[in-house]
């Protein structure tokens, strides 16, 4: 039985040898019918069996004449049968492989190598099997044959793996991390640095000279121009009819969609880049920066070169010694590396008083490393520039508002890397700049604000040196007139007996004009504020600020309030509104005035408020005082339901229990549309000498009909109480 089976197998092996020879010889004339294609495609499935079996077989053959096994019959038979089965499976695999290679996309040198090593494996295995029966089959033959077969088998496997997985598949995870050198945008080529990387990442694993799927290679310009089996890859300038883009835009389910489903797909940006490249006539030698600045391809490509962590600026010099840096660092001289791994240093000097030229001179141990130097507002003189010129790698120099005159600027011209020079607020002269700026080779920006150079002169410089940007900055003399802000009160608005009216304005050279009769001041008739007017009673003053070249300020109203007596202690008999508490009862007499916008935020304001109950305050004077009026400073803002009290009562007496009504007031209610005001309201009465007073103010119980909040209780806000 076994014998029969072996015979049958041997015959099959012989037939396979003949058939494979036939296939190889007539390879070019054979066409594989469609129904046989699945058979060919089982090649990658089956190939693992012959590899394993044959490897085992050659291993056993190599030890066949080993003393312990030479006499072992079953070892010999097992080894022989193993080789037979392996060879047969190798035959099937080779046939399948040859069928598969007739399908599209299997061209290129790796495929050829794979084919011939694969076929060689089979023939050698068959040969070895045949030789085993011969008398001359010796230890040497067995071992040599085994080694050769093993080597060829492994190389066939290697080439096959290269076809499916691509070269360097195994070691890729280890080598991949060595990211390619970042390319400088200035040097970048559209094809080489933008388009080619896309092909390399997404296409060339199949479309390379070794694999040539669809007879297309996408790694070299020539091959790309040549196109593939389906014709030219693109029509220059017409992405919409170009094969490349058509294949990319096919739905993923389509067979011809590229890259095939299951492989990494192109991102929208990559597709856009390819389309724009084809649209721009698929140039191979153009630089990115040669494209117009508004070109979509350039804009998109530029983002690829946008600074990421990888584009850390590179410096040709070594880092300075850490200890040296540490020593040179002081409270007023900060020296810090640009980043953790950067050799470049940034130096800032502070505090005018501690500056001396030596502070720069001392930096000579790190002169190569300083790339940024900030001497803003330091008393640097022309003579110090020679100390700055030692920093040979300096890129940015800030000498704004220093004492340099610009005569010695060419001292800095030796700084080959200087890109930015800030000269704002210095005494540099046009003539000096014009003559010396040409010697700066790499300069990109010069700040010249507040230097005394006219706009015309700066324009002239700009024309003479178009590669440099000259920053002129803001010129107040040329700007449109600006409105002044209103004058401010210079002293306390609340006084006991008399005070001097004091108004001031923060802008130099402003004059203030005022009125005391309630009219708006004007620039001709109204008196100038001299800050000498003495007043002895409450007064309202309107004032405006004027200055040449400015629009006069809006009218400001300043109310001076007289408050002769401050009670020694006060108590509120009813609670305040929970949101308008200010600092409690003492806020009535703390001389801090509230402003509009009582709600933002309510707790940080000076207003004391009541809504649900009356405001009832009892105050005590340790020494009796003679009073004739009581006023409450209130906010009236109908829009937000803040109304004056409907009634004010003032009671007074010599003891807490015996007080008489001194006066009442019924404040006028605001009418619809009246604007918000802050004013003191109260009542006057005949002089009374009192030790205690009680003030009752009733919030408006019903907001009038015209108001959107009609019928509800109004809020009463008081910030100060004046007793005279």
């Amino acid at each position, binding site marked *: 039985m076994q014998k029969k089976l072996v015979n049958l197998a041997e015959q099959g092996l012989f037939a396979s040898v003949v058939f494979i020879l036939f296939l190889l010889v007539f390879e070019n004339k054979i066409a594989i019918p469609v129904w046989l294609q699945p058979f060919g495609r089982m090649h990658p499935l089956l190939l693992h069996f012959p590899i394993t079996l044959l490897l085992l077989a050659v291993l056993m053959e190599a030890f066949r004449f080993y003393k312990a096994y030479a006499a072992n019959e079953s070892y010999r038979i097992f080894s022989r049968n193993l080789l037979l089965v392996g060879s047969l499976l190798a035959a099937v695999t080779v046939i399948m492989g040859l069928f598969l290679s007739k399908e599209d996309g299997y061209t290129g040198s790796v495929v050829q190598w794979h084919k011939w090593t694969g076929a060689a494996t089979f023939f050698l295995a068959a040969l070895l099997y045949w030789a085993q029966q011969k008398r001359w089959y010796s230890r040497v033959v067995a071992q040599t044959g085994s080694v050769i077969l093993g080597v060829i088998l492994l190389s066939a496997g290697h080439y096959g793996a290269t076809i499916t997985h691509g070269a360097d598949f195994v070691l890729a995870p280890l080598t991949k991390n060595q990211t390619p050198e970042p390319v400088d945008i200035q040097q970048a080529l559209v094809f080489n640095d933008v388009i080619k990387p896309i092909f390399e990442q997404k296409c060339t694993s199949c479309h390379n000279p070794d694999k040539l799927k669809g007879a297309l290679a996408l790694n070299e310009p020539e091959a790309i121009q040549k196109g593939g089996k389906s014709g030219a890859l693109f029509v220059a300038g017409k992405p919409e009819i170009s094969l490349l883009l058509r294949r990319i835009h096919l739905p993923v389910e389509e067979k011809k969609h590229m890259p095939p489903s299951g492989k990494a797909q192109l991102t929208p940006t990559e597709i856009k880049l390819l389309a724009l490249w084809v649209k721009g006539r698929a140039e191979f030698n153009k630089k990115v920066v040669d494209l117009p600045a508004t070109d979509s391809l350039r804009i998109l490509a530029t983002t690829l070169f946008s600074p990421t962590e990888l584009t850390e600026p590179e410096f040709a010099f070594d880092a300075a010694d850490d200890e040296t840096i540490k020593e040179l660092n002081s409270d007023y001289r900060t020296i810090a590396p640009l980043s*953790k791994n950067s050799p470049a240093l940034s130096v800032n000097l*502070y505090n005018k008083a501690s500056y001396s030229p030596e502070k720069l001179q001392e930096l000579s141990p790190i002169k190569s490393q300083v790339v940024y130097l900030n001497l803003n507002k330091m008393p640097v003189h022309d003579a110090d520039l020679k100390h700055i010129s030692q920093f040979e790698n300096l890129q940015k120099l*800030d000498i704004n508002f220093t004492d340099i005159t610009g005569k010695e600027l060419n001292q800095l011209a030796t700084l080959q890397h200087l890109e930015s020079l800030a000269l704002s607020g210095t005494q540099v002269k046009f003539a000096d700049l014009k003559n010396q700026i040409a010697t700066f080779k790499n300069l990109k*920006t010069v700040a010249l604000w507040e230097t005394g150079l006219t706009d015309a002169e700066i324009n002239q410089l700009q024309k003479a040196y178009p590669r440099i940007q000259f920053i002129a*900055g803001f010129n*107040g003399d040329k700007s449109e007139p600006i409105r002044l802000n209103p004058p401010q009160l210079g002293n306390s608005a609340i006084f006991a007996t008399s005070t001097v009216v004091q108004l001031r304005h923060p802008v130099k050279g402003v004059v203030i004009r005022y009125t005391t009769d309630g009219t708006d001041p004007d620039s001709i008739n109204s008196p100038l504020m001299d800050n000498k007017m003495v007043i002895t009673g409450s007064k309202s003053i309107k004032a405006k600020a004027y200055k040449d070249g400015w629009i006069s300020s809006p009218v400001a109203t300043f109310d001076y309030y007289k408050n002769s007596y401050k009670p020694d202690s006060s108590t509120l008999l009813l609670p305040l509104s929970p949101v308008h508490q200010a600092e409690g009862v003492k806020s009535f007499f703390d001389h801090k005035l509230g402003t509009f916008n009582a709600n933002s935020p309510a707790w940080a304001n000076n207003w004391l408020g009541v809504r649900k109950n009356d405001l009832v305050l009892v105050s005590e004077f340790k020494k009796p005082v003679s009073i004739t009026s009581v006023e409450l400073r209130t906010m009236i803002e109908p829009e937000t339901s803040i109304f004056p009290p409907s009634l004010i009562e003032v009671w007074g007496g010599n003891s807490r229990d015996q007080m008489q009504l001194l006066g009442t007031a019924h404040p006028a209610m605001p009418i619809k549309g009246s604007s918000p005001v802050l004013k003191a309201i109260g009542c006057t009465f005949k002089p009374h000498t009192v030790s205690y007073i009680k003030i009752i103010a009733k919030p408006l119980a019903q907001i009038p009909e015209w108001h959107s909040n009609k019928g509800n209780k109004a809020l009463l806000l008081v910030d100060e109480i004046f007793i005279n």
Partner: protein
Amino acid sequence: MEKEILEHGLNFNRRRFLSRLSLGLGSAALGSLLIPDLFGGGSADDESFTPGMPHFAPKAKRVIYLFQNGAPSQQELFDYKPKLREMWGQEIPPSVRGTQRLTGMTANQKEFPLVGSFVDFKQYGQSRAWVSDLMPYTAKVVDDLCIVKSMYTEAINHDPALTFLQTGSQQGNRPSMGSWLSYGLGNENKNLPNFTVLLSRGIGNGQGVYSKLWSNGFLDSIHQGVQFSKGEDPVLYLRDPEGMDRKARRDMLDNLAQLNEMGYQEFGDPEIMAKVKQYEMAYRMQTAVPEVMDLSKEPDDIIKLYGPDCLVPGTFAANCLLARKLSENGVRFVQLYHQGWDQHGNLPFEIAKQAKDVDQASAALVTDLKQRGLLDETLVIWGGEFGRTSYTQGKLTKENYGRDHHPRCFTIWMAGGGIKPGIVYGETDEVGYNVASNPVHVHDFQATVLHQLGLNHEKLIFKHLGRRYRLTDVSGKVVHDIIA
């Protein structure tokens, strides 16, 4: 006892050691399967972070953040929506509104009529960006700005949103962005605090700002924001007490330092030396701060540029000018808060005044930095904590309306610091309710800011209570499209 130890030593022979070792090696190998970088020699070096040292060379050295507290309405300032005007009074389509949650203020509102901006927009500069008539000065510098119209956040109320933007978490107690930068970048000027805060208030409806917004969280307290207030004492407790002159202060500090040195010798606690350093810095601040705060030497051009209010302490203009001076003097992060942008009602009246308050000085700051050659190294950011709704809050009349909080989109602008100038990034839908393209999450924004300062947001970490913390928590992507 000694016997057992000896026996244990003897038992611990070579064979046992090796067999144990194999177990250890095996588990280490197994572990490396789970944590691929476990034995990756190269990457370990990148991970280590040295405080005060950027990961890579920064584009920006400093930040000035003009925070518009209360959330300015993008529809009235930068996000031009003609369609919204066309659809005036129409109910917002449910397809647009989606499942967006509402605040307690409008949750019970019956109708949500769309309302277009009361103010007109025009295009400016080479970028042809749309800017509303409320911002005439900003419109003039539009070619220096990168306007991001597609910001979005997660919070819907002021405090959580503000806290989220500043600290990366809605709950607070984490370090603020300025503290993170101070930690990551270190001091440029050792005589001023690294992170300063300036507050101002506009005329509009305001919301509180609290010191937790400039808290150092779990970072060292030297990274805390220092508030500079208006008035005679810009930095509290800095001035010498009355009767103490500078020499007496110096002597006191020297003697104190000697005592502290003794303490350090005895206990070796580094906090002692940190304290000495802080005393010294405060001493130097006594001269540095008044110099910075002095506005009297500013030229007239500056007064006109920022507007005369810049000489009135406590105004937004004055704070902008101070911000420039602080930044110019090496302060890493100057944080401004301008309150009053919370226009739930009465919007047309309030926002006009509010915009007028900030427009000139914001634009001036950009111009001023530019004319000193500092704009390329200073990142200026302008914006609020979220946006406002496209529909009205409260009653819609011809003249008046309001807008509620809206987290799904808002507009900010950035300038300088290596951000692309003259671009508009991101778009919202036709009614300005949803982001239509290029969304930028708060964490993306934070990651981008850190990136500009040379910091990798994924590596700027601080280990606290057993976990690693980042400003961007566990997400955030650098928006490379807006980086020059």
